[in-house]
């Protein structure tokens, strides 16, 4: 009986010791091993917007690499799903990412996608950040978990500042009827009219590829000083090509996103010279901040190319999210919905300027510079505080 009791006691002691050892080992491990957080992301990786989704992904991956290098206590990984630019699939992606344990979601491209996806994210209590949707409606919904770093007002401000400084008499705006370009054109029409400039807007269906009838009308009827293009890459090419054929007597062609990029000059060198578009940085890239330099170097190392417009946007949004995530984790509020509060406390410099979020989750400081294509280089020409060269005006590609 004694032998049996002592055997049980020995076994219990051994188990207790083992448990103690295991516990101690686990404790040691938790002291040394960083805690890993998963950030979910949905992007268009197939279809007509695949290039944009890919560029967004590249910026995110660089940001994650830098965040992980800077924070020994924490590690972040990205769980990326192709939303196929379809609202229902974007919503499903958000639900899947949330059920797989993502602590926050980085949104895709287009207000039609971001709207329903961020709604779903809000219902699941997950912070949602985007750099791919500029619709004003998104921030009017009163969602507590929605944040974005760029908006229509910022693009509008950048372009209106440039055109206002040039003091033209007349401006013709050629605008796609797609949501973001249509909103921008509407805002610019009001802004420029308020500056005493006569503005004519020509809307076009995104399906059209021949812009000669519009350019002809502008040439013969409007006779503007500046043609402003509120559109996308393929449209710019069609518009400038038509203008090069018909040669309207204008002094400048101005566009918006994805125009003042090295890629556009590489692919269409005969169309781009002197054309102006929104930009963050000149080309060759000259980054002044330490974070920007690290981003540019790491991006070059990972993808063997210079940083571009959309990757810069996604880099900034991911860095902002990581910062807030680590702060919430440090405070122990992550599990209690503290991430949204930390996002609201954001106040940092970035490649886009100062990032803060107002009560609606929008970044009120967002504003862009304007860059001009000049023989393969992009010179920042507006606003004066960011310019690294003088604008060529009049200056057209032909």
């Amino acid at each position, binding site marked *: 009986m004694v032998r049996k009791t002592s055997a049980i006691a020995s076994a219990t002691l051994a188990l207790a010791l083992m448990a103690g050892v295991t516990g101690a080992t686990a404790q040691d491990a938790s002291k040394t091993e960083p805690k890993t957080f998963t950030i979910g992301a949905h992007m268009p*990786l197939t279809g007509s917007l695949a290039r944009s989704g890919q560029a967004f992904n590249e910026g995110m991956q660089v940001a994650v690499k830098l965040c992980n290098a800077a924070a020994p206590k924490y590690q972040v990984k990205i769980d990326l799903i*192709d939303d196929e630019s379809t609202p229902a*699939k974007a919503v499903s992606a958000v639900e899947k990412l949330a059920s797989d344990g993502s602590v926050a979601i980085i949104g895709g491209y287009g207000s*039609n996608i971001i709207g329903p996806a961020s*709604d779903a994210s809000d219902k699941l209590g997950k912070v949602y950040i985007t750099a791919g949707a500029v*619709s004003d409606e998104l921030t*009017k919904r009163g969602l507590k978990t929605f944040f974005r770093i760029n908006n229509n007002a910022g693009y509008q401000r950048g372009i209106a500042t440039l055109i206002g400084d040039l003091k033209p008499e007349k401006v013709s705006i050629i605008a796609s*009827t797609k*949501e973001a370009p*249509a909103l921008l054109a509407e805002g610019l029409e009001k802004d420029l009219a308020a500056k005493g400039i006569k503005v004519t807007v020509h809307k076009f269906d995104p399906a059209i590829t021949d812009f000669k009838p519009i350019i002809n009308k502008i040439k013969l009827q409007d006779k503007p000083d500046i043609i402003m293009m509120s559109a996308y890459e393929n449209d710019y090419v069609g518009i400038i090509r038509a203008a090069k054929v018909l040669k309207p007597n204008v002094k400048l062609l101005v566009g918006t996103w994805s125009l003042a990029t090295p890629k556009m000059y590489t692919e269409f060198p005969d169309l781009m010279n002197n054309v102006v578009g929104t930009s963050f940085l000149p080309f060759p890239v000259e980054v002044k901040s330490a974070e920007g330099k690290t981003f540019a170097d790491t991006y070059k190392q990972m993808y063997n190319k210079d940083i571009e417009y959309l990757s810069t946007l996604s880099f900034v949004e991911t860095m902002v999210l990581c910062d807030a995530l680590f702060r919430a984790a440090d405070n122990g509020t992550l599990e209690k919905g503290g991430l949204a509060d930390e996002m609201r406390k954001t106040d940092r410099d970035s490649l886009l300027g100062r990032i803060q979020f107002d009560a609606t989750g929008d970044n009120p400081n967002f504003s862009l510079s304007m860059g001009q294509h000049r023989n393969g280089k992009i010179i920042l020409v507006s606003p004066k505080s960011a310019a690294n060269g003088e604008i060529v005006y009049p200056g057209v590609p032909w």
Partner: protein
Amino acid sequence: MTVTSATSVSAAIRRSGGRGMALGAGLVVLALLPLAAGASPYLLGLLISALILSGLALSWALLGNLGGMVSFGHAAFFGVGSYASALLAAKLGVPVLLAIPLGGVIATLSSLAMLPALRLSGPYFALAILAYAQIFRILATELDWLTGGAAGLQRYPGLPTLFGINLADRAGSYVLVLACVALFALVYVVLRKSHIGTALRAISDSEDATRVVGVNATLLKSWMLFLSAFIAGVFGALNAHIIGFLEPDYAFSGIWSVMPIIAAVFGGYRSVLGPIFGAVVIYLFDQVIAKSLIPVGHQILLGILLAVMVLLAPNGLSGLVARIFSKTAEKHHAGA
């Protein structure tokens, strides 16, 4: 027909009706399984999308099967239904559950404009309705005072709570969409078995011959167009209130014209259940299986599946299942 044969026919109908009821009840139970098993919002979300597509495929197949018309423009009815319902709920304060069938009614009214095209047949009708869908997309973009233009609509009411069931959450939406699919499938079954269904099938075989025996083919085809437009409009409205966002490019997207055709052909558009199951199978295969195997570019697997299906079973999934069952029954009889 003798009294004996008439009795045996009616008994056969009763038997087949009983079998149909049992099959229908079994399918509804099967469809409710995800709820009983506590499926995640993600899975329910996928099923909701698949069922929306099912409803649209059913509406397309009804027009093709009973009306003898191949439509490449169901996006028009889907889009009109979605905009109508969202606008009625947002601007006039119509309760959402009333706005949804009203969306279907307005889609039906919009299909009146298609009546002249009923004189056309085959590819000519298909092209006319394709153009029709484009006209509505452009109208939705241009009438920005009403539709919000290219920016679309974002702030309109979602699905409400009814008898304590929150229809806006995934489980509630799933039950609502499932009920709508079941209801319209039942309407389709009843219609097919009626004299009208017989006349319509005769029209699709030979319209001229049917006219000779006094059937008003144009009127019956018009009714099928209206019913098809109504169903498509209702599912468009449901989708709009579930997704919570509308813009012309999405509401009138070509996907709503092409996907129901693919789903109906895959499932077997000659049957009632074919389009429904076709939509569920292809959507879930694409989003769950293919996407997990090839996260980017998974559509290639769906393409291969469709090609294999068309080659091996031209009558679709329902035809394949029927063939397997009849072979099994033959073996069983031979064994007996």
